[in-house]
């Protein structure tokens, strides 16, 4: 089910998601200003990105 390359990509994705969802990256989005804050928008975009990558990895990368 998990080929080595996919395993590495998966781990990289988990690291990416963790980085996106936690400070200090989070603080950058929080300090970007705006009223109301851009933070939720940032979170939703990052979230969608992670889900998209995961879907690609799980459904598309099967050939490898």
């Amino acid at each position, binding site marked *: 089910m998990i080929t080595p390359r996919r395993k590495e990509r998966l781990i990289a994705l988990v690291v990416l998601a963790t980085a996106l969802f936690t400070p200090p990256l989070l603080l950058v989005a929080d300090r970007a200003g705006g009223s109301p804050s851009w933070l939720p928008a940032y979170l*939703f975009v990052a979230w969608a990105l992670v889900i998209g990558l995961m*879907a690609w990895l799980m459904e598309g990368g099967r050939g490898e």
Partner: protein
Amino acid sequence: MRDELTVLTIAFGYLALLFVIAAWGDRRAEQGRSLIGSPTVYALSIAVYCTAWTFYGSVGRAAQTGPSFLLIYLGPTLAMLLAPFVIRKMVRIATAQRITSIADFISARYGKSAGLGALVALIALLGITPYIALQLKAITLSYAMLVDYPQEAARRLDEASFLADKSFWVALVLAVFIILFGTRHLDASERHEGMVAAIAFESLVKLAAFLAVGIFTVFVLYQGPADLFARAAATPALEQALSLAAVPGGSLGWVGMLVLAFLAFLTLPRQFQVLVVENVDERHIQRAAWLFPLYLLVINLFVIPIALAGLLGDAGSDPDSFVLTLPLAAGGEGLPVLVFIGGLSAATGMMIVETIALSTMVSNQLVMPLLLRSKRLPQSSRGALAGWVLGIRRVAIFGILLLGYSYHALIGDAYSLVTIGLVSFAAAAQFAPALLIGMYWRGANRLGAGLGMSAGFLVWAWTLLIPGFAQSGWLDAGFLSQGPFGLGWLRPYALFGLEGWDIYTHSLLWSLTANVGLLVGVSLFARQSPLEQTQAALFTEALHPRLDQASLWQGQTLRGDLRALLDRYLGAAATARVFADSGAEDDDQSAPPALVARAEQALAGALGNASARVLIGSVVRGEALDLEAILSILDTTSETLEMNRRLEQKSRELERIGRELRDANERLRELDRLKDEFVAMVSHELRTPLTSIRAFAEILRDNRELPDDKREHFLDVVVRESQRLSRLIEEILDLARLESGRLTLHPQRLDLADLTRHSLEAIQQPQEERGVSLEVAIEVEAAPVIGDPDRLEQVIINLLDNAGKFAADEAPRVRLQLARHKRGFRLAVEDNGPGIAESERERVFEKFHQIQREDDGTVRGRPRGSGLGLPISRGIVAHLGGRLWVEAAPILGGACLVMELPEAPEESPRTTPAPAVPAGE
């Protein structure tokens, strides 16, 4: 549309629909056409994670603490990213060990410990009951809101008897539902297909309802999201509402909550139930790994718009009910009812799964072990115990729902929705160390797990549960600010003086520190029992290929004893299934290890691993599972894998060598064929002149009266043919020497121009006799090369001779050119004959090639060659470091043979003849 009767009809109608769907799902499962055998249904069933807490509480949380509500969903997203590793392993273990619940899982990991299982079950019961109460509270509140609006949810719980409380009746209906669809099989590790189908359906309903109210808010109450956010931006009070500043505890609180949600997602009993126990197919995890996070994202999309709209408008003071009050305030009729149904589906879905999970734990981890120990069970009747177990489970279902209802009725008013939910999360998170560390560290042991979990639970109770009681007025709240008995460092919200944290992160930090610390610390020193070591190895190596448990069994028992045991506890049908594959042997024979393993698994599926172990232990003599055996199997398996890898490498190597050998053999055959051809050709070539010599000699012998001129002509022929024969033999010998490397050359420095002139003189006469006109263009003063003059001359003459032979019949012309080319000299001999086709150009250097050409009818009236001249020439030239090839003649248009030799190095002061070297290498 909002009168009590209509709402009640719709609500209970909805519950009736759940019964229909579940019954349909079970029917399909019996027919073997499972409804839930799809990854999408699996992902939807995981969405039982979104309870009434999500449905109503997210908006409340967003309104009060900004984006922190998202953490409850980002945590599970991270967990699902790890699903291909973690959850797959859990599913693999659960399938192999017939795990029935998270309590069973942890108990099985730590040596099938009954005590640990009971501890997990107790913590779950205490920690999760408030969560069930929360769902009931949501139903009661939303019902009251729907019916009484615009009266502000005035009806307090204590003002109405429980008989008038609709959530009491909902709880009762759910109890019936769960008993019907959750306790159909005795084997709790089997799937509840109908129930899962109903849960997946509920997930769709709550999603649709929430999206409906979201779209209504954004596009009907406001002119799209831009309008809504513009108005929010214009409200100063909302300036910081969505930034990190609104999150309790700031950055630290953010991370703490993320970790909490991550751990709770894996350890909440209902999540474990749908993720692991109800998993039909391991491959479904792949789809769910992104589809479930996507579900979470979609259901949260409108939370912030609804919260902002609620804060901006006059939707009432309680943010937890914005979802309902917004459409109500707008005067909607149908939408509020849909929202109520959505909330109802979220609440009931959670209660159904949670109650099944908890009731299984209560029966298998709390009640059965006690009953087994007390020996109060009826001894005789066949299969009667199966009824007992199911009965216990059914009573437990009623008990758990009643407990939830009591909690809701007694204490529920004090907490907001989110608060109760997070308290439960923190309780469930106490299972995480024992669960996760146990899956990856073989050394984690029972004592450590038990102590760690107990300590974590106590810290949780002290820092979250008891302060909650105090805040709802049950206890004097004084100890919150001063600490118990004035001990300031024991204050629940500031343990050891750690102040300024939000209460959940604070509780999580201390409870997990105690939990993990004890688990690891004690495990490093305490000893594991053999069974525990075996189980630890089986869990940590669960993804190891070819780990076949059946071969690990060593205990001894009679088939009859085993049959009697199963008969008592599982009934005749289940017993027959277990014995089905083992043939109809005599009950007095000893049971094979695989059969013992199957029997224990069957018992484990029904009663839990701990009880199954006790029961099997009562009939099996000797240690059933052997650590040495399993370790050696693991080792041999890895050794075998390594061996396989090496073998594969070897076989690939052998294959390559075989291929090379085949090629070499092919080449040898080809050479052998060529040799045969060569011998045939040589004999043919030798026979031709020999035949004519012999013929003419016989004529001369037999006809003594021949006229003189004729005799002379015949003798001439004999002499010419003899010369040809000896030349041929000379050439064959040359060739043989050349090919065997015995041709001796005497390389020395010489002038190729001189040598060419010399050769031309030698050939001029015969060429003129043939009428060939020879053109010479020596374009260099001197052409110093290294070569054997005799051999080189032989080559040049051969080239000129050949050119003469192949020049045009009418006005034959041959042209010789000697010129410098780069760092060497080129001698080109061309003719005006038909030339040589591109494809033939290399073949002229094959032995006897030319003869064949002449044989096929293009014979001209000129002396024939042996067909060995060119191969020999090429051999000589190659040995002198040069090249010989054919190309199209640039001037005369026929063939052009080009010989190229490298220039000799600068002449040394004294020319010494180079030593003779053999040709060929």
